[in-house]
């Protein structure tokens, strides 16, 4: 049996400190210089600024590169973000401390159509899960002439390092609550729960190219075959995001670490179902890859003896085809599916929602229509670069009026229609 304890240190405020960064009585104290020093270790980063954003403040963060939760491995093999910050030891066992309620939000312009808005208050705040976290916003600018590949890499790694630095502050803090996730091997679990339906989680990972990539233990997901991972591994950062396009339905690293399908299946594990494992598969551009990867999803689901699976998607358009292939093939094995997706039904809600469809996908959870238009009132403070708002997805030219109101589609809002079911939005 595998066991991972998540010790949640509940963070209810974040403050700057001139002394060393620390966690005390649920307050995260952040020393700007310490953060900047970590960012500037990378010679490709020319400058770094740190801001704090709390729920309810009149603050807008944009464009959001990634959101990361500070965690630290206290007991057990390996460390957080294996393949990047830690070595590639298999993680997911022992004890991990979490600064629950805090998040690192990285921002910076990699390309001219960078996207992702987090409003900490106002109507936009309802649509993003990250208006409820105490955010340490890190804005980094690259050295002149840095190529987009290297720029994305620099921001990604800096985010992980800073999250680990902050997570480390919780190493010796007594957690407010400890959640235990136990995971049996398939022989043990079959013996323990002979009468419960066997359920796996099939997670589709964005894997199409620059700004569209996901990594598993440091490996680019588009170069992987569909495989099995134990669900506790993701809680230690085994899967990370290099994806910063389509902010409403991409999975920031924070979502991978807190994968809600994993948590909610664990919740039912041993009660109404037997959670037997997690299958990760990719969403490549090349059609033969899609065929192979979905064949393998179905094969592994059958191999695990599944009665049912939940399939989650990431992104728009191309992945609809992977989603339908996975669903059709898994259903064809006699395994029942529920899929989580989101919709692009047009601003009027009248267009065809998905780019692919099949009658076997008869149980769908939707994250909502990403084309819904929203007016975001001006915020007192903007961290990042507001000038991109008119070139991002769901924006349009001249979409800022004289009063500073921005008219965008909710696809511009980070996490609005998340396809792992991280958010509460839906549509009918």
């Amino acid at each position, binding site marked *: 049996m595998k066991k991972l304890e998540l010790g949640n240190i509940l963070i209810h405020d974040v403050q700057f400190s001139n002394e060393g960064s620390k966690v005390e009585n649920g307050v995260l104290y952040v020393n700007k210089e310490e953060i900047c020093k970590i960012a500037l270790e990378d010679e490709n980063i020319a400058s770094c600024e740190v801001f704090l954003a709390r729920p309810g403040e009149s603050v807008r963060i944009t464009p959001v590169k990634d959101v990361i939760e500070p965690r630290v491995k206290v007991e057990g093999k390996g460390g957080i973000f294996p393949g990047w910050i830690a070595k590639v030891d298999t993680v997911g066992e022992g004890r991990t401390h979490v600064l629950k309620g805090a998040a690192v939000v990285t921002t910076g312009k990699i390309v001219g159509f960078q996207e992702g808005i987090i409003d900490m208050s106002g109507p936009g705040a309802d649509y993003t899960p990250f208006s409820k976290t105490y955010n340490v916003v890190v804005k980094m600018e690259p050295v002149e002439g840095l190529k987009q590949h290297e720029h994305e890499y620099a921001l990604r790694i800096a985010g992980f390092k800073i999250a680990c630095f902050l997570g480390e502050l919780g190493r010796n803090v007594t957690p407010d609550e400890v959640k235990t996730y136990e995971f049996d091997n398939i022989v043990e679990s079959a013996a323990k729960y002979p009468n419960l339906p066997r359920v796996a989680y099939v997670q589709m990972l964005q894997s199409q190219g620059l700004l569209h990539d996901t990594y598993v233990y440091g490996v680019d997901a588009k170069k992987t075959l569909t495989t099995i991972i134990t669900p506790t591994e993701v809680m230690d950062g085994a899967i990370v995001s290099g994806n910063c*396009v389509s902010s409403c339905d991409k999975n920031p690293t924070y979502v991978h670490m807190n994968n809600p399908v994993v948590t909610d299946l664990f919740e039912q594990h041993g009660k109404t179902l037997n959670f037997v494992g997690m299958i990760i598969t990719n969403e490549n551009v090349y059609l033969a890859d899609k065929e192979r990867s979905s064949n393998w999803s179905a094969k592994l689901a059958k191999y695990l003896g599944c009665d049912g699976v939940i399939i989650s998607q990431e992104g728009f358009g191309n992945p609809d085809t992977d989603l339908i292939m996975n669903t059709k093939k898994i259903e064809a094995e006699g395994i029942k599916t529920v899929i989580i997706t989101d919709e692009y039904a047009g601003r009027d809600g009248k267009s*065809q929602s998905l780019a692919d469809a099949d009658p076997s996908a008869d149980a769908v959870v939707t994250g909502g229509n990403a084309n819904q238009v929203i007016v975001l009132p001006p915020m007192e403070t903007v961290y990042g670069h507001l000038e991109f708002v008119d070139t991002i997805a769901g924006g349009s030219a001249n979409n800022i009026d004289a009063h500073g109101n921005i008219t965008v589609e909710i696809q511009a809002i980070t996490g609005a229609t998340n396809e792992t079911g991280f958010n509460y939005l839906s549509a009918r």
Partner: protein
Amino acid sequence: MKFVIVTNNPRVRDELGKEFEVDFADITYREVLCKVRDMIYGGHKLLTHPLSGSVKPNETPYKSILVDKRWGKMDPQDASIIENSIITADKFSVKFPEMPDSVREDFQLIDTTLIKSALMSIPEIF
């Protein structure tokens, strides 16, 4: 494998044109999709997803698609994918009228990396 990259992206033409067969034309995103659709109805096999990338069809002006050069029987799944892609592209009605050159170049770059990721999947090449 004999294939052609159908594109309206000058960067793909310049960067990949020497090594691979590139069918470049200065046409719209939608016209690239339609050109590929006609090839598929003519019996060519679609090799990459026409909606590659999460950048929305009304955001980026650029699109590159890999198509098998060989002729065969029309593949109904390919036809369905390309038709659905055109329908999907059409529903993003609000277009960006202008963009600075720097943004244009970024879109060219992203499209190039997407098609390169597909090229890496063709076993005979790498």
